[in-house]
Every structure is written in structure tokens, then in C-alpha cells.
């Protein structure tokens, strides 16, 4: 059993130093670091099994195909999909969402239909729907936030109608860490006959996901935010929905037979994976899924929450620091804050001088920042390898900010 107390040792990157100081990594909502097993899996694939998949008769191709398909099975198990065929590999979560917009969306959304998104969405789960609505002359509606910055479920209820075709919502905000009640959102959408796409990028590596008990129709995420390699995205879709969808991209690998003037496409899910996929990284993603399963997602969730709470309390001891969510809200893992008189970019620069990596700016969520009336924010985000010492380092960085920006600038 892997213990969270010593887990940092499994991640080689923590051996390096930044500006002479040990690396403290609090930018996990952007991407996560890779355990030795994932790095080894990439190397092993190229060293031992490298080949193209789904076509060769030779041993290497058969091994590569099997490894690739094993990850599909492991991914299905990880989120409790009914069958592995409900798992499509893409390049990233953004591509997964675009796939739905460009196939299901262009086929089934019609003029006058309504698509509902939430005010919390990352640009990846907003812009594809803006585009689709513009194209189809459909209407984009937005679930607003309450004063506590939770999703306003009363307002959501009012937005739903017979016109609602699709609801697109995040399982966890990448800016605020807020976790909307996805299950209720899905249930209410289904009650009016709409389908639901959940952006699971921030949540799937941090707590258990069960797409069947949630009842969601599509669930999108990225491997790199859950210890896996970059360049691998996942789209889960209910089999019945996937079957009705036209291909996303067309060409090699996704065809059954091709005549000179016409092509016939393969079955689901291969129909949606045109061209040679990112085989090595998909294969290595399996190691990340195994790692998370062995550690136990329930434990990771509890660990994140403990760190989040302690970081929230640490920030609360500094009068010039303002957290963007209260300690009692549904948020975890992701902790956004601002400091009076100090721009988030300056905050991140000084954090970096202490070896602490955080994110600053708009975090691909510009409309959310506009809604909150702030030009940008700083964000700490936690994962399984973070420790209470990391929060001490963050505290040290904040004290340094106050030494440098000793008085709040009068704006």
C-alpha cells in the first residue's frame, strides 16, 4: 500500500530545485507530475513494444494493440463505464468536448434549441458551445452563482425547459474549486429530456467517479491532470448516444472499408479515433490509473481537503489576503486568492522566488473573473504529493510579498 506521507519519493521531479530551493508544486489544477511508474511505462513501450495498432499481424503490433486496449478497459473501470467501448481517446479534455460539439451537437442541436452552461466553466466547456449556438442559431444560457459562489440551483431550475437540448457543467471549477451537485443537475436535465456533458478534468483524479450512478451522458477529462502523460484526453459517452453520432475526424484507422468514392466507418469507439493515436502515452496512462487506484481516491480526496482547509486558514491569518471562496463552501483542491495592492502575476513571481509554483491570471475562465469583478487571481491547487510543509512554504512566500510590497498601493 502506498502511503501518502512518503509518496513524494515516487515522483522524480521533486528531486530538482528551483532557484536553489526545493520544488514546492501547487499548480496541480494546470497539470500534475508523473510518478516513476508512468515515466517507465512510456520508456518501456518504446523500448519493448513500439508499433502501430489495429492493423499489423506481427507480434509487436499485437502487443501494442493489446496494451492500448487494456488502457481503454482500465479507464472504463476507473469511472465505472458499462463497457470499454464507451471510452474514446482524444488529445485532451478540450478535444473531447469539441468532439461532442462537432458530432452530437451538429447533428442534434437545432435552431431555437437551448444549451445551458454554468458560470464556472473553463473556456474549454464554453467556447465550443458558443460556436455551436452561433452556427445553429441556438441559445446559450448560463447558470449564475450564488453569493457564496456556488451554482444557483434555483436559477438552474428556471432555465430548464422543453427547449433545453444539452447541459454542460463542470464537476469541479478549475478557478474556485467549487463542486456543483452534478447528480442533481443531471437528474433535472433528464427530467426535461436534455442530455448532460460533465467536464471532469478537475475532479476525476481527485475523488471517485461513477458515471453510471451519476447518469451523465458524456464525461470528459485529461490524463495529464491525473498523473498521466500529456496528449491523452478521454471522452466517455453512453453507447447509445455514441452510436448515433457521425465521425469526428475522418481518414485512416477509423474506417471499415473504403471505396474510391465512399467510405464505411468502423464501430464505436474506433470510429472516433482517426489516424494513429498517441499510443505510447495512452499505454502509459494505464500506469497512472493503477497508481491512483492503489493509493485510493477516497484517501486523495480527504488529503486534498485537509490541505485545502489548512491553506485556507493560513491565508485567513493575513489581513491583506482575500480568498475567493469561503471555508464552508463545496470547494476543495483548488484555492483562489487575491492580495490587496499586489497583482496576481507579482504574487506568482514572488512565490516562484521561494521555489513555490502557483498559477496566476485568468485560468482560462475570463467570464468568471469578469463576473467576480476582479482582473485576475492567484491560485494554489493541491494533490496527493503535497504536504503540510508545502503550505508553510506558501506562508513564507506570502510574508515575503508583504516585505516587498510593504504598503497596499492606493488605487
Amino acid at each position, binding site marked *: 500500500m502506498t502511503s501518502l506521507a512518503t509518496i513524494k519519493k515516487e515522483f522524480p521531479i521533486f528531486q530538482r530545485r528551483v*532557484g536553489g530551493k526545493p520544488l514546492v508544486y501547487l499548480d496541480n489544477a494546470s497539470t500534475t507530475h508523473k510518478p516513476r511508474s508512468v515515466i517507465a511505462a512510456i520508456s518501456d513501450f518504446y523500448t519493448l513494444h513500439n508499433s502501430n495498432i489495429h492493423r499489423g499481424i506481427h507480434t509487436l503490433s499485437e502487443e501494442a494493440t493489446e496494451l492500448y486496449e487494456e488502457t481503454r478497459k482500465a479507464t472504463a473501470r476507473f469511472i465505472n463505464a458499462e463497457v470499454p467501448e464507451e471510452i474514446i481517446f482524444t488529445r485532451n479534455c478540450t478535444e473531447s468536448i469539441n468532439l461532442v460539439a462537432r458530432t452530437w451537437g451538429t447533428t442534434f442541436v437545432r435552431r431555437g434549441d437551448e444549451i445551458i452552461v454554468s458560470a464556472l466553466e473553463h473556456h474549454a466547456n464554453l467556447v465550443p458551445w458558443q460556436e455551436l449556438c452561433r452556427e445553429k442559431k441556438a441559445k446559450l444560457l448560463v447558470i449564475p452563482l450564488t453569493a457564496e459562489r456556488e451554482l444557483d440551483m434555483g436559477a438552474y431550475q428556471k432555465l430548464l425547459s422543453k427547449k433545453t437540448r444539452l447541459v454542460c457543467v463542470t464537476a469541479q471549477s478549475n478557478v474556485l474549486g467549487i463542486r456543483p451537485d452534478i447528480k442533481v443537475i443531471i437528474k433535472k436535465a433528464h427530467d426535461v429530456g436534455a442530455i448532460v456533458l460533465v467536464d471532469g478534468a478537475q475532479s476525476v483524479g481527485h475523488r471517485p467517479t461513477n458515471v453510471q450512478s451519476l447518469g451523465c451522458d458524456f464525461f470528459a477529462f485529461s490524463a495529464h491532470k491525473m498523473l498521466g502523460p500529456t496528449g491523452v484526453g478521454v471522452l466517455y459517452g453512453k453507447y447509445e448516444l455514441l452510436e448515433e453520432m457521425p465521425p469526428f475526424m475522418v481518414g485512416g484507422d477509423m474506417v471499415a472499408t473504403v471505396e474510391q468514392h465512399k467510405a464505411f466507418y468502423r464501430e464505436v469507439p474506433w470510429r472516433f479515433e482517426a489516424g494513429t493515436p498517441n499510443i505510447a502515452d495512452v499505454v502509459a496512462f494505464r500506469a497512472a490509473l493503477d497508481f491512483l487506484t492503489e493509493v485510493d481516491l477516497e484517501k486523495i480526496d480527504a488529503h486534498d481537503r485537509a490541505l485545502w482547509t489548512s491553506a485556507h486558514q493560513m491565508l485567513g491569518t493575513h489581513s491583506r489576503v482575500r480568498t475567493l471562496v469561503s471555508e464552508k463552501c463545496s470547494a476543495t483542491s483548488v484555492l483562489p486568492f487575491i492580495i490587496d495592492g*499586489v*497583482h*496576481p*502575476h*507579482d504574487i506568482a*513571481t*514572488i512565490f*516562484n*522566488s521561494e521555489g513555490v509554483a502557483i498559477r*496566476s*491570471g*485568468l485560468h482560462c475562465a475570463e467570464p468568471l*473573473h469578469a463576473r467576480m469583478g476582479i*482582473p*485576475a487571481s492567484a491560485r494554489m491547487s493541491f494533490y496527493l504529493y503535497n504536504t503540510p510543509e508545502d503550505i508553510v512554504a506558501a506562508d513564507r512566500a506570502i510574508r515575503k510579498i508583504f516585505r*516587498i*510590497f510593504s*504598503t497596499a*498601493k492606493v*488605487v
Partner: protein
Amino acid sequence: MDDYSETLLDHYNHPRHTGALRKPDVRIVQHNPLCGDSICLDIAVTPKMKIRDVAFTGSGCALSQAGMSLLSEYVIGKSCTALKRISSDDMDMLVGTRVSPGRRTCADLGLAALKRALTDIENKMKK
């Protein structure tokens, strides 16, 4: 970069040449779409094409705002022709640190506004 020089912080807390010119020859609004920082820069030139006066308003991080303030002091009295050669290296010199790649667009926000202003002035004079 990790050091904020005293000069930089002084210019951040007390920016010079803020406000607007009554009769600017050119006004440029420059945004950094990555972080929302902005600068509105007014420039007036002499008949001999030297920078007569500069004024700016803006919002954003210490680097972008102090950078513009330092740049304002630097450009006044200089000829437009000479200023066409101004570069990111000069901004590093003005802010007193080697700016990291991630902060380049912050430090160069004022510089980008200045360069557009110089082009506009040049085009105006051609007419």
C-alpha cells in the same frame, strides 16, 4: 526574475507621468489579453520629432505599471527616430532585472504601446 528593485517598487507605488495630455499627438490603448493589464498612453511630440510629453493611465501588475512609468521618464526629450530601436533589453535595464519569459509581456506592455505610438506618429507626419 525574483528581485523587485527599490526603483521598480517606487515607480509602482508612485507612478510618474500619470493622467492624460490635453492635446496628445497620439493616444494608444494597449491590452495584455493574457492577464487583462492595460495602459492608455498619450504622447506629444515637438516639431523636430522629439518626445515633448508623455502621460499614461493603466492597471495591472508592478512590472507593467512601473515599467511604463520608468519608460515615460526615459523617453521624454528623445527623438522618435532614436526610440525606434528601443527593445526588451532596454526594458530590462529600466526595471533593473532580467525579466523571465513568463513575465515578458508584462514588462513590455508599455513598450508595445510606445512602439505603436511611434508608428502612428510617423504615419501622421507622412500625410
